[in-house]
């Protein structure tokens, strides 16, 4: 009897324990699994999506289509200035990554100005902006002969307005892919 009673107790205890364990598992497991999934997603994105797939796209696309996609982002400048602003450097660093992963691509950098300069000086200023942009990319490692420059002065504004918002948009260096 003693043995039996002990056996029953043991079983009951085990059952109780088991119950407890189940409850603990239900509580703890979900957050862990979520975190695990998130990590897995991030790890998967990097190697798969970017270079391989886009490279093939470029081969198939015309220059016009490539330029419409806007792989290379324009940067902006301060009034009457042509130095690369610190907040614009990350954009050029991204442009650099794209250019270095597409080594056959050649680009034209267009320098543009807002309306608050003479036609003549804006040609000079736009050229300085295009050059500063080229020099920055060259300093990161892009070959000099892959980049041509041109200045359009104030002749091609994005925004025809006459206010600070429009001017800020119009002071820029833009990329045009001219060979793939």
């Amino acid at each position, binding site marked *: 009897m003693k043995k039996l009673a002990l056996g029953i107790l043991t079983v009951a205890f085990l059952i109780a324990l088991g119950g407890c364990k189940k409850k603990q598992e239900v509580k703890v497991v979900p957050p862990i699994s979520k975190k695990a999934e998130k990590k897995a997603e991030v790890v998967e994105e990097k190697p798969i999506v970017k270079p391989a797939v886009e490279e093939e796209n470029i081969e198939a696309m015309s220059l016009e289509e490539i330029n419409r996609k806007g792989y290379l982002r324009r940067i902006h400048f301060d009034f009457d200035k042509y130095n690369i602003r610190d907040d614009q450097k990350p954009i050029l660093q991204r442009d650099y990554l794209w250019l270095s992963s597409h080594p056959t691509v050649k680009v034209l950098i267009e320098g543009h100005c807002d309306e608050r300069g003479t036609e003549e000086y804006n*040609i000079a200023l736009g050229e300085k902006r295009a050059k500063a942009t080229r020099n920055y990319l060259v300093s990161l490692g892009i070959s000099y002969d892959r980049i041509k420059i041109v200045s359009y002065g104030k002749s091609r504004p994005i925004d025809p307005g006459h206010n600070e918002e429009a001017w800020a948009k119009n002071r820029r260096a833009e990329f045009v892919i001219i060979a793939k």
Partner: protein
Amino acid sequence: MRKFALFFLIFGLFAQQEITIKIKGGVPAIRIAVPDFVRKVKTERGEMSALELEDTFKSDLSFSRVFDPLSPSLLSLVKNRNPEKPDLKAWESVGATVVFVGKVEEKDGKLRFSGKLYDTRTGNFILGKSYYGDEKFSRLMAHRMGDELLKFFGQSPIFTSKIAFISDRDGNRELYIMDYDGANQIRLTYTKGMEMLPAWSHDGEKIAYTSYRRGTPELYVRYIYEGKDKLIATGGSNITPDFSSDDNLLLYSSSLPGNPEIYIYNFRTERKRRITFSHAADLSPKWSPDGRKILFTSDRSGYPQIYIMDKDGSNVRRITFQGSYNASPCWAPDGDRIIYVSRIEGKFNIYLFYLSTSEVIKLSSGFAMNENPCFSPDGRHIVFSSNRSGKYQIYVMDYDGKNLRQLTQMGNNLMPAWSKIKYRR
């Protein structure tokens, strides 16, 4: 000049008296009476052309600031209108110094425009001219007659002068020319690129300008009446040309060496010579009327300012000290006055500067972009572009800022350049 000498011979005494008249400070010197022309026309078209001719002639004279035409009310006081024998005493009594009697006749679909100029005090007939041509050249005949009057009084002819400019009325910026009064606007380039900053040769047959037809700003010379282009400079940005008075040397700015520097192109040798050596942007070189000095702008002090140097690039001096951004200079034919734009709060206005006294006078006003000012060949008028009415349009005003008139309407019209005449010592 030869014709001029002839007048001297024929009307010796009188001509000498009249030529000493100086038109200064905007005071019109010559009170001229222009009674309505005698019209002998057969067709409606002839009538229209004759009226246009007369209007053109009269508005030329009022525009000139050399002549002060009598008002219609004064004209109406003189009753005797015999064109063969004008009542000079009566014209003198209403204040006229000279009387111009014009006649327009239609012959075989063509017009003959003849005019006679009389002096009211001496009673002398002092100048007679006549033109014969197709009706469609009625404006030109009026301008030619007006120029003869200007020349007779020792003034530079400007009524047949032209203005080159850039317009985007057909989509992209192309090169155009028009008469000085805005008539006969003609498109010259069809590059589908972009044209900018034209400049005339003194013979009136060439225009130097910048074109993006091959992607970058290159300098070309257009031979207007041959329709041909000559490439002058390529590589970098090549802008702001200016012809020497013999049309053999072309000043321009090129950023080929890394930053904009000033060059001289020689048409005879087809060689280029660099004359500025700075780390700044040197732009907008302009020959002095006597060809011995060059005006230019440079941002070597941090912002654009106007400088003067000898024609070999030596002896550089800064001349503008008022305002933080002065550019786009243009030299008056007298060699003493220059006009330029100055930036204040992001807007441009036009200023007049006397080299002899360093006096500065503001000519344009308002809160708009007033740009690329250029003197007329006689230095009495200024053409410029402005966006005061929204889009950029071309305007003309007198040297004192008066008599503003708009010459263009369609699209944006900018960067005007007035044709030149040869410098006379």
